[in-house]
Structure formats: structure tokens, C-alpha cells
């Protein structure tokens, strides 16, 4: 599988609905400091189930876009389209489709997940993603400033990485 499209609306610095197509191969994301590059990565781990604490935000409200005038939007939504052409996710889908879409919508007090547009529990998203060995804390996602963290862990915590991929 791979990421085919990411759509962000009202999440962090994305006040305007933004839809980004992704392709296999090597993609670079560039831009000046503070423009929202890491927020794109946060949007991906958010829709996969990460808690707000791990997204550099104290409370869930901090994930809702706030304008320079201080107006906060009532809700935010991120949706992620993953390739399913080889049927990786078919086991947990009613029928085969070439793409699978998961999305997550939050307000100041609620958080709702959907698979193919249908409301579902967070656990179901987790199970679906695990069919492709995808999880928000996966070794293949390296957040800003964290590249050498894997070396700084204790030997016991490092060994857990081998267990995870065994």
C-alpha cells in the first residue's frame, strides 16, 4: 500500500481545506520555518489515531485552527486515502475497492472516526491499518528532532523494536 491523498480542513495551521495527492517514489516537502510542514505529518498520525499530546498540542482544542484574530473553527477533519489495489485491506472491508479512505473529525469535545465514510470505532481503524502493518508510532515515521532517539533509548527498549518487527 501507499498514501494516495491527504485532505486537511481546520486542523492546526490548515484553516483552508487542503487536499494533497501523493504518489509512489520520492516526494520532498519544503517551505520556510513555521509554514506547516510538520503539521502535515501530524495530520497523518492524527488520522491514524495519535492522541493530541503526541501532536505538540496540550488539549484537543489546540488542534482546531485558530486565525491570527483569535477565532477558532468549531471542527477539524483529516482524511487519508490509502492504496488497496493489491487487496491488503479486503479482509475487513465489505467488498474490494482500489482505495480505502479513513477519516477523523474532532470538535472541542468529540472525536469521530470513519472508514469509507461510515462512522466506526477507533479500534476498527487500528485493526484495518494493522493489516498493512501501519501504526502511528511505526519505526518508519521519524518526527522532527527525533532521528537519533532510537539510539538514545536503553538497550532493553531498543530490543523491543526487534520484537515489533519479528
Amino acid at each position: 500500500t501507499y498514501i494516495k491523498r491527504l485532505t486537511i480542513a481546520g486542523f492546526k495551521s490548515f484553516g483552508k481545506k487542503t487536499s494533497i495527492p501523493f504518489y509512489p517514489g520520492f516526494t520532498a516537502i519544503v517551505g520556510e520555518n513555521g509554514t506547516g510542514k510538520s503539521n502535515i505529518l501530524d495530520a497523518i498520525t492524527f488520522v491514524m489515531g495519535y492522541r493530541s499530546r503526541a501532536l505538540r498540542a496540550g488539549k484537543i482544542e489546540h488542534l482546531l485552527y485558530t486565525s491570527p484574530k483569535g477565532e477558532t473553527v468549531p471542527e477539524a477533519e483529516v482524511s487519508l486515502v490509502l492504496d488497496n489495489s493489491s487487496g491488503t485491506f479486503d479482509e475487513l472491508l465489505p467488498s474490494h475497492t482500489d482505495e480505502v479512505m479513513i477519516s477523523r473529525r474532532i470538535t472541542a469535545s468529540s472525536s469521530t472516526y470513519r472508514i469509507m465514510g461510515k462512522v466506526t470505532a477507533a479500534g476498527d481503524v487500528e485493526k484495518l491499518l494493522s493489516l498493512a502493518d501501519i501504526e502511528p508510532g511505526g519505526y518508519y515515521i521519524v518526527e522532527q528532532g527525533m532521528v537519533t532517539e532510537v539510539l538514545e533509548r536503553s538497550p532493553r527498549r531498543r530490543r523491543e523494536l526487534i520484537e515489533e518487527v519479528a
Partner: protein
Amino acid sequence: KKEKFLATLKAVSVELDRRFKQLFGGGEAKLSLEAPGDLSSGLLIQARPPGKEPKLLDALSGGEKTLVAIAFVLALSEGKPAPFYLFDEVDAALDKPNSERLAGLLREIAREAQVIVISHNEELIRHADRVYGVTMRNGSSRVLALELVGNAH
């Protein structure tokens, strides 16, 4: 279960060494257990940059540690292949020659798995197949697809 763990440890260690040699242009690296007989003991990472003595990880430089860490992350795919790689400024501590080597390695990996990298580093960006530019207008982020001029490949 035990055989699976040991087989994975061995496969990841061999791959770590291969990626290490690609990034450093020589030297060697390997994984081992703190107490070889005890399967539940911690994991040791040993690395020797070319032309140097084997060192504790702590004595390596900032850039050298970055390269070892990246080699290790890429080697873990020998256990479970990664669906994609999302790297946010992993190249911050690298000099130009090491950035070039990393870019070459990422191009190779990108033939098998999707690689998405956030970076300020020209050396990396010019090797990408596609580049997105992020800007901020009136306090809100915008994303544009950028045309690469005179692309590296």
C-alpha cells in the same frame, strides 16, 4: 517464537551493516544482545566509521549518530517491510557529502516503498521525484506542487 526473534535480529543486523556501509562509504555496524545467551537482554548497537576505532555510540559525532540511526531504521524493514517512510528533517545534522549519500539511498529505497521527506536541504530536495512547497498566507498554510528545474536525475 525464540527462533523468529533470533532470525530477525540476525537479518536486521546484516542489513544494518549494508546500509551503514552505503551511508559511510565503508566501516561496519552490527547488532548484538547485551548477554548473548539471554534472549531477553537488551540490544547493543556497535558502529565503526571508516578509518576510525570502534566507538561507544555516545562518542560519535552528531552527523555520525544521525547516519547510524537512519541505517538502523531502514534495516528494521528486514523484519516487517515499511508501508511508507515519513521523515521530518532527519538530515538536519548532515554535511553536504553525507546529504548526497543519504539522497542517493532514499532514491534507491523509493523504488520499493513510498518515501516522503520534509527538508530544507538542497542536496536532498533535488533528488526528489516530486516537490511540494508549503507557504503561510494570512496565518493559514497552503500547499503548492513545485516544478523541479534541472532535476538531479
